């Protein structure tokens, strides 16, 4: 009862935020809508018994990444002329149609799925920090370390690309 009551509104928030992001001309507004959407998504994560991921979602995405976005937007100091005007081109028409068609196809596929409900019983500590931590530092240690290298490289790369002159 509670799951359904929480899921559908939060799903609506997530989708609404996403739609708001796509519809807003000003990227700052878009970013704000996206943050909204991320909050909705994070709530749904909680429903999926992924507390750690939900927390990370808020911290990394809504916090770090989106702040970075907003920083960049501010840094670039765009004015009214730089805002795009909606135009209908073959690209937008086909792109929109493709996205729509994708959604419809997936919707059709999912509506054909057997009406499987989520199991109510979950293992002890499912989605908790400790169990996720054991998983990541256990079997997933190599990808984890690789990710750390990736982040390092990305950091250096970002500096190199963004700096006017080294």
């Amino acid at each position, binding site marked *: 009862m509670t*799951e*359904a009551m929480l899921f559908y509104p939060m*799903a609506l928030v*997530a*989708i609404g935020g*996403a739609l708001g*992001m*796509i519809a807003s001309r000003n990227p700052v507004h*878009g*970013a704000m809508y996206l943050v909204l*959407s991320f909050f909705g*998504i994070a709530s*749904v994560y909680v*429903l*999926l*018994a*992924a507390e750690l*991921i939900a927390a990370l*979602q808020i911290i990394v*995405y809504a916090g770090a*990444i989106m702040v*970075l*976005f907003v920083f*960049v937007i501010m840094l*670039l100091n765009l004015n009214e002329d730089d*805002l*795009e005007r909606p135009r209908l081109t073959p*690209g*937008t028409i086909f*792109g*929109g149609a*493709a*996205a*729509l068609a994708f*959604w419809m196809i*997936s919707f059709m596929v*999912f*509506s054909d*799925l057997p009406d*499987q*409900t*989520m199991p109510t*019983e*979950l293992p002890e500590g499912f*989605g908790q920090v400790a*169990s*996720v931590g054991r*998983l*990541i530092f256990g079997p*997933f240690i190599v990808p984890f370390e690789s*990710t750390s290298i*990736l*982040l390092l*490289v*990305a950091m250096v*790369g*970002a500096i*190199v*690309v*963004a700096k006017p002159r080294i």
Partner: protein
Amino acid sequence: MGSVPLAHYLALGSALFAVGFAALLVRRNALVVFMGVELMLNAANMTFLAFSRAHQTMSGQAAAFFVIAVAAAEAAVGLAIMIALVRNRNTLNVDEVDTLKY
């Protein structure tokens, strides 16, 4: 019927993916395009977590963890590129950036 079926989570994921996809394809502002990509990553995460929950295994959560990490890296590099772009070309319009190599 208090629980939500798996299909609905997946549908939410696909809907978010579609919206992100639309942003990627339709919008011309590189930043918004980029946000669309972020949204699509989240949609993927949604699917991971939904199946993780459905199958009672945590591997999906680990995957989602990595996706977030990679998304962070990608955002850093992508936004750096955008800064470079504005500095060199003075535009964020992807239509005007069509020289794939220089």
